[in-house]
């Protein structure tokens, strides 16, 4: 029927803008990935399809070291942040209000409100002193700094999960003669697991992605993958950077996709 229709949900032009937005979000990423397969030596011209730059990047010792370092930092920081955040979440959810509750909540989330550059230079100031005093200049500083800014990210999904959990299940377990530790281990923890996994993955991705804080906290020769790339961008850029970026991108997208499906199953 060719009768004029009136759809209350439609606003003229909005669909076009939306499609433009989606195109705009993906066009640059797509370009970057395509150029990773460029056989040419420079980014200026297309020299045909090749995996050359992926091999090049994989064999580059500096890239290997940076990737390994990023992984160590992300795993350590995400683990510590998740443990600390889980404990804090247990202490700040499903309780009647008590003195200090809102302080804790605000304090844990505070790192989210401070611009990264500010935290970065503040850490630079403090760690510079500590390095002189202790003589230690290992990865510990990076791991500690990453743990701190990962805590609020890990805390969010864990707290959300806890808040949606029915306390009567734990009461039932206690009623069935389970002592507090057993209640935690056999009831609370299994129910909380999706939240903990989500928190860990969030923290992991956040740590892996960090540029600014790492750039200011790292000592000489402690490049992570992002700071290595940032350094490289100052020089003449070869498609090797594209190859690293593309590989990194695939990893992030894979993680986010897994995260998406875990969350979807839960819902």
């Amino acid at each position, binding site marked *: *029927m060719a*009768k*004029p*229709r*009136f759809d*209350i949900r439609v606003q003229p032009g909005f669909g076009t803008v939306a499609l433009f937005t989606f195109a705009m979000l993906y066009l640059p990423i797509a370009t970057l990935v395509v150029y990773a397969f460029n056989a040419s030596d420079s980014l200026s011209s297309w020299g045909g399809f090749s995996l050359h730059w992926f091999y090049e990047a994989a064999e580059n010792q500096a890239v290997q070291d940076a990737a390994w370092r990023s992984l160590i930092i992300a795993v350590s920081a995400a683990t510590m942040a998740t443990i600390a955040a889980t404990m804090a979440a247990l202490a700040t959810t499903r309780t009647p209000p008590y003195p200090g509750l809102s302080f804790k909540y605000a304090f844990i989330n505070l790192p989210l409100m401070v611009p990264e550059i500010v935290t970065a230079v503040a850490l630079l100031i403090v760690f510079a002193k500590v390095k002189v005093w202790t003589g230690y200049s290992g990865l510990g500083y990076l791991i500690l700094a990453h743990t701190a800014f990962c805590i609020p990210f890990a805390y969010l999904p864990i707290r959300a999960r806890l808040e949606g959990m029915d306390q009567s299940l734990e009461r039932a377990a206690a009623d069935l003669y389970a002592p507090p530790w057993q209640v935690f281990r056999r009831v609370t923890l299994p129910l909380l697991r999706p939240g903990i996994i989500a928190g860990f993955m969030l923290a992991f991705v956040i740590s892996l992605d960090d540029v600014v804080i790492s750039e200011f906290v790292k000592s000489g020769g402690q490049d992570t993958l992002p700071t290595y790339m940032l350094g490289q961008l100052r020089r003449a850029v070869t498609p090797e950077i594209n190859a690293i970026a593309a590989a990194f991108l695939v990893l992030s997208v894979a993680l986010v996709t897994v995260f998406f499906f875990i969350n979807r199953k839960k819902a």
Partner: protein
Amino acid sequence: MPEPSPVPDARIAVDCHGIVKQFGEGPRALRALDNVSVAIRENEFFTLLGPSGCGKTTLLRMIAGFEYPTEGTIRLHGEDIAGLPPFKRPINTVFQSYALFPHLTVWENVAFGLQMLGWAKGKIEARVAEMLKLVHMEELAQRRTDQISGGQAQRVALARALAPAPKVLLLDEPLSALDYKLRKEMQIELKRMQSETGITFIFVTHDQEEALTMSDRIAVMSKGRVLQVGTPWDIYDKPAERFVADFIGETNFLSAAMVGIEEGVARVRLPSGIEISASLAEGYRPAGEATVVVRPEHARMVTTGGQLSGVVENIVYFGTDTHIHVKLDQGSTFMVRQQNSRSKSCGASVGDRVGIDIAPDAAQVLRD
């Protein structure tokens, strides 16, 4: 469906003709409305009555302009309104959920339509004041809509929809969210407002009691079709089909045999072998087996005689009246509703053998 009692001089406000609403295509297609035609007269309180899913709300939304018929035309005062978007139709709606704007005050809600129509400031103020007075909400004009009760929200929704003086007011189960007492009050209020404003009201409800109390005319709908259109009296006392009889009030169904038809009145033989007369829908001439309905208050329990007989199975006391369930000798159950009086009980107890006397003119033959 032909109108049972057309009034030739009444003007038609909304004329829905041959409306079909189909979702999907092919054998899996779902017909929400199946060839529906109703003509709603000016200044009428018209009710679309039916169970949920019967298509009554879909029809209402079509008149408002939020849905479009697959086939058929809708005319407003003779003019086809298919091409008009909702904001160009001189029709307003009282939504089921009221849909009051939460970011506006009561006053601003009522003024909204007038502002959109570009009325002058002074005129808007006068009109809003008048409307708020009509619904007794003058004092709460500056309240936010989340600070008023359900009943008050209902009044605001009504004032908002009436303010632009629409030609037709659509009401989509507006009372369903209210509690029983408030609902009774609002039924009377609505009726008063309709007669005060003279606006055509089209009211959608699944509550048969509400429909009978308020309406000038009722269209009973089921499964996307209009089964019967008529005054509350028509619908209650002369149900044309089994669904209508069953859906509205309580009723007894008796299978009977047609004996003959004289001057539009049928002669039927009841299972007990006794013959009674029963009215017929106009132009309907059945033969053979037929179903006859008798409302429970149109029959009387008697100790001897009556057209039917059986054993008292159950007696249920309802305050104003008592329902007596009688197991008939032929197997089915017949219910008699008896007004209670102060002095005596209903006059029978469970297990008693009784007769049932059907009032003359009470029986009606159903169309199959």
